[in-house]
């Protein structure tokens, strides 16, 4: 059955998955449109470089497309896709050749949200905030991957504990414990500026 362009956005996720599995690439394209931002920002939080995050998130969708037969239409598509995104990102981060470059780019992936107007008008305060941002970025970069992942999902993707637990397939208590360890490590790293 032919579907008008505007109607793609109205189809349920389950229907899109089933259509994609039946070979309809436009249905998969609609799934990409729905989740591309989320996948990109998840990757950005994990690898810290916008270019690499774009590359890895697109690669995740390409792999998802190739493996679309194994998607369970009854389960959330993003939870399944996220497993591919995180695996690609962790492998990328573990690669020693990319580690050094990532550390150099670490300051580029966070931006300031606080007091934008007042801070911008005050050069000294501006420089202070930029320094803090660079320190926080680098400290997050140095966190072990599992702690970093939970911190990013909580702080930058604003997910609730239950959502993080479901996404990662871990108990909520583990989410809180990892978050605690991540924040304690950040507190130690940033002791002189907090």
């Amino acid at each position, binding site marked *: 059955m032919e579907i008008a362009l505007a109607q793609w956005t109205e189809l349920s996720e389950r229907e899109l998955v089933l259509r994609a599995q039946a070979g309809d690439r436009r249905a998969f394209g609609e799934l990409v*449109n729905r989740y591309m931002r989320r996948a990109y*920002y998840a990757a950005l*939080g994990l690898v810290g470089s916008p270019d690499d995050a774009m590359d890895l998130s697109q690669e995740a969708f390409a792999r998802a497309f*190739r493996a679309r037969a194994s998607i369970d239409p009854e389960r959330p598509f993003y939870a399944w896709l996220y497993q591919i995104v995180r695996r690609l990102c962790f492998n990328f981060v573990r690669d020693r050749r990319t580690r050094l470059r990532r550390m150099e780019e670490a300051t580029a992936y966070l931006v300031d949200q606080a007091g934008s107007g007042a801070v911008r008008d005050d050069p000294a305060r501006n420089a202070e905030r930029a320094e803090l941002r660079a320190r926080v970025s680098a400290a997050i970069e140095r966190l072990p991957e599992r702690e970093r992942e939970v911190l990013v999902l909580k702080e930058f993707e604003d997910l609730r504990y239950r959502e993080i637990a479901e996404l990662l397939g871990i108990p909520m208590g583990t989410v809180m414990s990892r978050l605690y360890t991540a924040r304690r490590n*950040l*507190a130690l790293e940033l002791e002189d500026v907090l």
Partner: protein
Amino acid sequence: MSEREARLEQERARQLMMAELDGELLERERAELKQVLENRPHLKEERKRLMRVKEVTSSMALRPAPEEVWDDYWTSVYSRVERGIGWILVSAGAIVVLGYATYRGVQDLIADTALPPLVKGGILALSLGLVVLLVSVVREKLFVREREPYKDVER
């Protein structure tokens, strides 16, 4: 209180502190946290430090990507899929063609009466050695790195 109980209480206190920071503390847990903090005054100091960390990280966000990158996103994904299919076809074709060429080459070599047996053996050994080296390098790239015990160690 046993050492195990103390550890569990400490773990619970940390979880409650996180829930408080993130606005996910239930009403009944609030009283529990208050009680734990009274029993363990050193946690109050830690709670303050963690609150400061939360304050700082909450004031930052992931850098937004320029809007135009989303216009071609699906096209880029689909190009990757196409390229992947292309590579699979090229690899499969190359294996068939190279396999056939090797088969014919070995046949011709064995049938060639002009070449001394020693040279034939040398050519075969050279070819076989190259194949073994190639397989070894590919296998190392694909599997050994996955099992390296020190891959997560920061240097």
